[in-house]
């Protein structure tokens, strides 16, 4: 089996979505990496075969959405073993999951649900991250979620919760800049202060995506269904100043456009990262 190429200076990638696979395979666009949702490749589908072909030309990042690291219950060992198998086959450069939970009592609710940020949650979450890392034999990146509600009994600011998780478990952080912006708008906090509260040395990846405003309830919904919004690009520039140029992903999951639009967004992210590098050395 050929080894996948390492991440290079070109550090903008896109989420690999089924309708784009054939075009990417045929045209091999210049991209830093491809990211896939782990759960879409756990069955023996033709899509998995295509991914295994593409991995010899592109670094692959595996982004899990269903491990439910924040559940009060033990991890789903079957799911974790399937993730491990996939990692062994794909040999990804990055593996990430979420500061969230999705399943309880045997029901998977297909969403990244919010946790109360309490001491209890922090202990549970760190134990699960530690368990997962031990089984997988590698460190994870943990992504900050977007959210639409906060619990009254939360006592730990989210950025601190993540920072403390990284400190206790050794995991890295996937900083989703759009999620910070969405939650900051939804709850009225300062997104730059959030960025500043994250430890710069453990940021392993950045996510960028579009949101849409649900005007009837005055909430921003993180739907990954449009171009990255201007204020999110501005926050990304701030993140580059704070963390340096780390692998950056354009996520697009709903209302999927032509591949060219995703490539255009990735080029823009790359330009900002290159500009940042240039500015650092100038």
């Amino acid at each position: 089996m050929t080894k996948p190429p390492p991440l290079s200076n070109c550090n903008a990638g896109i989420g690999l979505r089924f309708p784009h696979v054939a075009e990417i395979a045929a045209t091999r666009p210049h991209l830093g990496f491809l990211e896939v949702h782990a759960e879409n490749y756990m069955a023996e589908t033709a899509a998995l075969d295509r991914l295994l072909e593409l991995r010899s030309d592109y670094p692959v990042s595996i982004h899990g959405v269903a491990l439910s690291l924040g559940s009060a219950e033990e991890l789903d060992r079957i799911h974790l073993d399937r993730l491990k198998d996939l990692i062994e086959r794909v040999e990804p450069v990055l593996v990430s999951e979420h500061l969230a939970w999705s399943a309880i009592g045997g029901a998977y609710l297909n969403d990244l649900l919010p946790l109360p940020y309490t001491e209890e949650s922090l202990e549970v979450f760190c134990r699960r991250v530690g368990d997962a890392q031990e089984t997988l034999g590698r460190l994870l990146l943990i992504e900050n979620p977007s959210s639409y509600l906060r619990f009254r009994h939360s006592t730990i600011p989210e950025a601190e919760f993540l920072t403390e998780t990284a400190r206790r478990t050794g995991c890295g952080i996937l900083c989703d800049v759009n999620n910070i912006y969405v939650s900051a708008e939804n709850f009225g906090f300062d997104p730059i202060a959030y960025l500043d509260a994250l430890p710069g040395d453990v940021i392993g990846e950045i996510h960028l995506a579009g949101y849409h405003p649900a005007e009837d309830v005055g909430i921003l919904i993180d739907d990954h269904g449009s171009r990255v919004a201007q204020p999110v690009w501005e926050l990304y520039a701030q993140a580059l100043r704070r963390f340096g140029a780390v692998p950056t992903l354009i996520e697009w999951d709903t209302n999927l456009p032509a591949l060219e639009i995703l490539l255009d967004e990735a080029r823009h992210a790359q330009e900002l990262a290159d500009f940042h590098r240039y500015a650092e050395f100038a």
Partner: protein
Amino acid sequence: MRKSWPISIDMPNLLELQMQLRRAVLGGDTAALAAAVRCDGLDPAARLRIYRNHAFATLGAVLERTFPVVCRLVDKHFFAYAAHEYLREHPPHSGCLVEYGADFADFLAGFEPCLDLPYLADVARFEWALNVAATVREAAPLPIEALAAVPPERAAGLALRLQPSVSYFASGWPIDRIWQANQQSEVPTVDLARGGARIEIRRAGDAVDWRRLDPGTFAFRTALAGGLVLAAAAATAAAEDPTFDVAAALDRVFGEGLAVGFYFVDQRCANLGSTKIG
């Protein structure tokens, strides 16, 4: 030194809170949880509805992708309603959603508003078998020459392992014709009176293949897939079709790459175990 934060009191612990949120998402019961949610300028129930709507919209879309013809037969709005009722009672167990919907057909069979479409549950069974075949890899086929190693005195206890992607499916309705008709933009009339179908569904390379089988072949292969020994499968086929030619049928099973292994079942304790050699 370990950091510490203020401790909160009189609030649900994590497990209680997650069970309450599960009930809010699946059942719409937000009363218990609302007290634990900050207003932040919007009613907690409205905040919880965002999560509930997301779960039903996305999981409904998963079912629609797996059961497109069922959706077309009942129309999108009714499908969304049926999917909603199904989801409440049968949420997925894992995030590998291509595997969600195994018992949707059984649910439809008992779902009263669908009872005037008696073939609907079988269409769902057919679409589920297509989905399974698309998610299971073909194993290396076994050449028929491998059977030469079987000592004659053990032949009676021989059973075959078939391709893991294959399934056999019989319906009193012409499910395959209904399915095919609904691939077209103008659905042609399907004559339901023309009777049922016996169908084999399997993975073929990247694609999924299905076809009708004659009654003898269908009985033979269904019996083999169910783990019956060769002799018993042959007897089942002969009961369907007295002219059934077992040797030719076995040749076809191997010729089509369906057999992937064989093993022996001890006839005296067939239910207790087997010796696997192939």
